[in-house]
């Protein structure tokens, strides 16, 4: 008897989409001075969701001026304890409107509602809660007796966790006393705009948070703006490098959270079923659109074959489809561009001789989809072992000794995340020491928490987000 799940779609009714969205500047929604706009679509259906204003240089001017005025005015003068209460308020409203945010995020991004509901939105609220408490305790953060805010922070965030990344950026910046101009990604502007509404609802003083929607040129204008004291960017290493060059010599502060090619290392004595879950969670969570994804599986030789066998069985149970369905595990690829990039890299994997496998799964006719994919017989030199694919594609390599695992794991300019699976405690600590990665998950993967610093080594960027260490990015200490 076949045990199938009937469709269980989350209702869209909780979300009211406007036909068009303005910029959020100085506490109000205002049309873009640029007069330009762009359309944002649901990647699962290709249906246009709304028209969104595209901020030009004059809009950046206006937003930065509003942020500056707020910094020199009410926000800069406010006691930390009062700032804290605004952040607590925002956190609470996020919780109260959690379902609305989750559905909106899934519509605009294509990620499964299970994830937006259980991960993105609760974590976003948690980030505001955590940082709220710091606002009046900054002198205890270990960064000196009198840390000062930097001023106006320009923050550019990616499309993979639109709301969560907005929270990661705004919460510490505001707690530290800065004001913000946030630029959400072009393909996922809606949840940041709803967050702007929440800021209004929380009576946040005008200009403390400004949201400028737009594409790369909007971000470039923000980076280039001389009124911005600090740039925080999450996105590709390529763009991060450009930003670092643009900021060079200006004395402005910069933090970058960039790409990764995380190794998930499974030893023969691993807790095998949990390791399989960790591999799945490591690369198929959020369709692999995760900078810290465990995109390289390093399996110890004695266990490689049985592990793969189990992994294939497990992939058979993954449900790909309507992101709003509560039982969907794999949602849509966020955009046509990203889908093309994933396809090109996957094709290169085949051409270079790696073995490609996906579970039988029917892709919806419309929208942007890519099946969960495993490549075996991958060598270090293959593009799929070196380049960040940012999609549901796992490259499998093998190793014999712990030293070989370390050498392979570290053989990349990236250094964001790594996973270790073994039941041997001393080996975990040894491996954790050797791995050049900002986050090491041992016997787990892709866990996040506002109290836990996150960020990379080398070309995965610099600066941390979360925890006491994340505050340093927004303080002059």
């Amino acid at each position, binding site marked *: 008897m076949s045990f199938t799940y009937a469709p269980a779609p989350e209702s869209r009714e909780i979300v009211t989409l406007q036909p068009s969205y303005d910029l959020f500047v100085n506490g109000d929604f205002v049309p873009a001075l640029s007069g330009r706009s762009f359309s944002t679509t649901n990647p699962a259906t290709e249906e246009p969701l709304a028209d969104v204003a595209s901020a030009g240089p004059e809009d950046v001017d206006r937003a930065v001026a509003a942020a500056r005025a707020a910094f020199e005015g009410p926000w800069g003068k406010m006691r930390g304890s009062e700032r804290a209460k605004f952040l607590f308020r925002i956190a609470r409203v996020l919780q109260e409107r959690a379902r609305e945010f989750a559905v909106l995020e899934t519509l605009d991004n294509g990620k499964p509602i299970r994830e937006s509901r259980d991960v993105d939105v609760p974590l976003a609220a948690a980030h505001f809660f955590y940082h709220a408490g710091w606002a009046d305790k900054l002198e205890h953060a270990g960064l000196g007796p009198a840390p000062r805010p930097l001023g106006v922070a320009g923050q550019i965030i990616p499309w993979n966790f639109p709301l969560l990344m907005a929270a990661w950026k705004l919460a510490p910046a505001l707690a530290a006393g800065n004001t913000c101009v946030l630029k959400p990604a072009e393909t996922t502007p809606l949840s940041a705009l709803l967050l702007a509404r929440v800021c209004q609802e929380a009576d946040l003083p005008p200009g403390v948070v400004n949201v400028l929607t737009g594409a790369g040129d909007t971000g470039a204008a923000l980076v280039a703006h001389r009124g911005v004291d600090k740039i925080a960017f999450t996105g590709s*290493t390529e763009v991060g490098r450009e930003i670092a060059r643009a900021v*060079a*010599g200006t004395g402005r502060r910069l933090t970058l959270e960039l790409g990764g090619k995380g190794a998930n290392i499974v030893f023969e004595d691993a807790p095998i079923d949990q390791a399989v879950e960790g591999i799945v969670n490591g690369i198929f969570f959020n369709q692999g659109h995760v900078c810290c994804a465990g995109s390289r599986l390093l399996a110890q030789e004695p266990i490689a074959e049985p592990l793969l066998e189990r992994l294939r069985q497990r992939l058979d149970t993954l449900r790909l489809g309507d992101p709003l369905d509560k039982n969907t595990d794999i949602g849509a690829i966020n955009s046509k561009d990203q889908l093309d990039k994933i396809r090109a890299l996957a094709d290169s994997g085949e051409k270079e001789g790696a073995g490609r496998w996906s579970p039988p799964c029917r892709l919806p006719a419309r929208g942007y989809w890519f099946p969960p994919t495993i490549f075996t017989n991958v060598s270090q030199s293959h593009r799929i072992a070196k380049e960040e694919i940012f999609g549901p594609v796992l490259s499998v390599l093998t190793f014999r000794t712990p030293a070989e695992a370390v050498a392979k794991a570290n053989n990349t300019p990236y250094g964001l995340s790594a996973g270790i699976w073994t039941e041997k405690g001393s080996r975990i600590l040894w491996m954790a020491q050797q791995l050049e990665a*900002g986050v090491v998950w041992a016997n787990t993967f892709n866990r996040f928490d506002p109290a836990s*610093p*996150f960020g990379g080594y080398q070309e995965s960027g610099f600066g941390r987000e979360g925890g006491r260490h994340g505050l340093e990015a927004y303080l002059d200490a």
Partner: protein
Amino acid sequence: MPERLPGAERPRSGRLEVHKTYKLFIGGAFPRSESGRSYVVSSAGGRRLANAALASRKDARDAVAAARAAQPAWASSTAYNRGQVVYRLAEMLEGRAAQFAASVAAAEGATARASRRIVAASIDRLVWYAGWADKFAQVVGSSNPVAGPYFNFTIPEPTGVVAVLAPQVSSLLGLVSVLAPVVVTGNAAVVVASEARPLPAVTLAEVAATSDVPAGVVNVLTGRTGELAPVLAGHMDVGALDISGAAPDARPDLERLAAGNLKRVLVLEEDWAAVPSLRRLRAFVEVKTVWHPVGI
């Protein structure tokens, strides 16, 4: 001309002095520049002091290679051990305080008394940083109370190879103040000594060579900062860069070059006489966070 305290008399014996040759310090050895070049180093008062090696791009490359080779073992030595090594350096300086004072006096044109104070401060600075070796991680690390059944801790780790453009003016105290925080946290350093005042740096290298500093952990280049800095700023095996010693108008280009592999870049001018903050210690470490489930 040899180093000498200002006003020191030429010996009457008529004995011909043995001049010192100032060379580079790379991988624990003292090579001449592979380019065969040298340049004249003069005292603050304009007296010719010595020839120093004029390091080339290739020397810089060799120094980075030596640093990269030495760094993993240095990083994996215990913090206690690194502290002792840096403390040993302080001891050696103390033993050769007179020589350093002479060298500083010649380089900086300071009085004998001021020079002795500078040397004393340099020794104390080394002692201060030596003491940080096994405390720093406690102060900047943390265990993080995440909302779930996980033990989560954060520790600092060295960035790797750090290129340091030493302060141009403060030839010993400035040098020690930028070098010690780099190595005490487990990095290997490639130092470009003050262009005009390189001799105390070379003497420090000689002390390092005969102390317990492993070969390659400290490398000292003398020469044109403007020539060497771009090479180091662009080098993909260099993880971080202290450009405080670069001319302000040279910094933007260096930062742009450093963006090639996203080096961590520090620009921090300090009053060397004041007690340092932790900024230099924090500048060249990576923060690593480790998660593990808590279960039975």
